[in-house]
């Protein structure tokens, strides 16, 4: 898979990459429009829609009543009629208000109506973390959507993939659940100016290694990369894979890596039960030559608000490294890195939102 090597790349934040993707597609296709609560306000969904209202006006960048169920259906109808809606939700938790339309209609319309209609829409949603996001601003619900045929699910973890995946999602003729993470917003990567797509169903090996394969979903990819550095200090060489796209899922790339290292730890930005991690583990094991596998994710609890409890709710580089070490060296005594690294963008994230 290609990596960002375009000489015209600039260092762009995840936020600006998303913004640029939408602006360019709106320039190219008059059927593309942005809709959602507050997409047109001065804050512009943390900046991801900022400036679009001024450029494209209220017909194409549209605020909504708090009617997620109806607005989802309206997007589906508009998509069936040939438009390309981008429905934005400031938190993924709010997608639960859209489930009937997304699962019963968007996912099924093309099939149920024998190909007479298609639903080219994008549902953007942001997973929150830290600064008291708590029970209802922190959920990673991507596995619920992976379960349903007809939906695509992508969770890009860097600015380059954010732009390429969003353009691909807008151009896709199917409903795409686009999973963002609030803590990725301030991360930067080289991003080409010209529009480009990142193909769905291709995982990216972001760090090579021989002893264990770490698969990091959404923000957990960042934690896996930090864990890889910690493991190197302990003499363990970890390969880190970013699935990028969860449905379709690139089982080949992950299974090849896991087959080579013999160990695979999947770290999800969500609960483990019936989750994306379970799916990846099962799909890899079904290929035969099953590696030793492990899963990490949210604690099997509701997310607490207080930081003193929240810190143990999430896997982090330290706990990932410790678990990976134990999988690679089961006979050694348990090892834990000395200091827990504080990732710069995590330290930078403060409230109120």
């Amino acid at each position, binding site marked *: 898979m290609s990596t960002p090597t375009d000489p015209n790349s600039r260092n762009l934040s995840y936020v600006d990459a998303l913004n640029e993707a939408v602006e360019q597609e709106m320039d190219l296709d008059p059927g593309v429009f942005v809709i959602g609560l507050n997409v047109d306000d001065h804050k512009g969904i943390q900046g991801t829609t900022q400036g679009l209202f001024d450029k494209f006006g209220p*017909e194409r960048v549209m605020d*909504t*009543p708090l*009617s997620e*169920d*109806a*607005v*989802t*259906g*309206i*997007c*589906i*109808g*508009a*998509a*069936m*009629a*040939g*438009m390309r809606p981008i429905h934005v939700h400031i938190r993924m938790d709010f997608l639960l208000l859209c489930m*009937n*339309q997304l699962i*019963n*209609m968007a996912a099924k*319309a*093309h*099939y*149920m*109506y*024998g*190909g*007479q*209609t*298609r*639903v*080219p829409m994008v549902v953007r949603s942001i997973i929150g973390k830290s600064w008291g996001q708590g029970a209802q601003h922190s959920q990673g619900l991507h596995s619920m959507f992976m379960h349903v*045929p*007809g939906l*695509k699910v992508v969770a890009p973890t860097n600015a380059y993939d954010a732009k390429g995946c969003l353009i691909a999602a807008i151009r896709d*003729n*199917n409903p795409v659940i686009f999973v963002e993470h609030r803590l990725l917003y301030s991360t930067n990567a080289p991003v080409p100016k010209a529009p480009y797509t990142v193909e769905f169903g291709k995982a990216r090996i972001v760090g090579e290694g021989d002893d264990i394969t770490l698969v990091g979903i959404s923000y957990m990819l960042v934690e896996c990369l930090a864990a890889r550095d910690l493991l190197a200090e302990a003499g363990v060489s970890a390969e880190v894979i970013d699935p990028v796209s969860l449905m379709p899922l690139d089982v080949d790339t992950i299974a090849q890596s896991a087959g080579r290292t013999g160990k695979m730890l999947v770290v999800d930005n969500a609960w483990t039960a019936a989750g994306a991690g379970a799916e990846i583990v099962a799909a890899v094991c079904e290929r035969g030559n099953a590696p030793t596998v492990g899963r990490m994710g949210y604690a099997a609890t509701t997310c607490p608000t207080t930081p003193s409890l929240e810190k143990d709710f999430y896997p982090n580089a330290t706990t990932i490294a410790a678990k990976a070490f134990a999988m690679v060296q089961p006979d050694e005594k348990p090892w834990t890195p000395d200091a827990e690294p504080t990732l710069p963008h995590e330290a930078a994230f403060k409230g109120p939102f």
Partner: protein
Amino acid sequence: MSGNTPDQETLARVYRSLRLIRRTEEEIARLYPFDKIKSPVHLSIGQESVSVGVCDALQPGDMMSATYRGHAAYLAKGGDLNQMMAELYGKDGGGAGGKAGSMHLVDMKAGVLGMSAVVGTTIPIAAGFAFAMKREEKPEGQGRVTACFFGDGATEEGVFSETLNFAALHKLPILFVCENNGFAIHSPLSNRWATEALCERVRTYSIPTHEIGDANVFTIRETATSALKAIRAGDGPQFMECKTYRWREHVGPGEDYDDDYRTRDGLAPWQENDAVTTTGDMLDAPEREAIDADVEQQIAKAVEFAEQSPWPEPEELFSHVYAD
């Protein structure tokens, strides 16, 4: 009877549509015990005048969305009868190749949006079509419109109120039509509504409403015609509540007056006022007989088409999961 007397051409066209729907569904009911129709059927028998009255006022380019009790609306909008029958049989020649059945009938060419088995679900989708239509470049007063049918039960879903508000806010070209048959499966309105003032509720969204109590097909047609004119002019959505009565059981081919929830007394006034009969009676006998004969032939052909149509190939299971 209420409603102005229609011209002869309209009368014949409306009767043909009513008769086609009634006889098609009676044929479905007759065939049902033979297990040829492999799909639940929710018959519209008795409710035809709402679909026919509204759809006769629509233009060919307009769209229409309906419910799982959608045979009447499908046919009234001009949906293909052969494809409908084959769809009920689960055959390859069905409009959706057997993947839809009775509850998800669709014929986009005829302006029939796909139907849904989840009550209320198609209401915002119809509004989404209207949202797209509003953005089409059309000469003034000639914009396309979406007509959105749903039952009394759907008005209890949150998405109904959400959609009314959005449609009114953005002046979408949509005609909402509530077919109020008084029952959600077997639950009467008295178990479900604090007040029966449905139109009053809708008017609070600043949507003009029309309540039609006797299901007269020409009153419905005239009301829809004037509402559609205002909608095409850009005035925003309108709402019709048409009282009607479901003659058969909720799902299946039979009657259910021996069940515990309603009696035949409730049916009697509706049968006396039956649109198929009263409209037919307005025609000369030879014209009526010619239409009747033609309708029978059309239905026989559709049944034959469904019988002859092959089953879908096994690989069709996996087609249309994702659009290319």
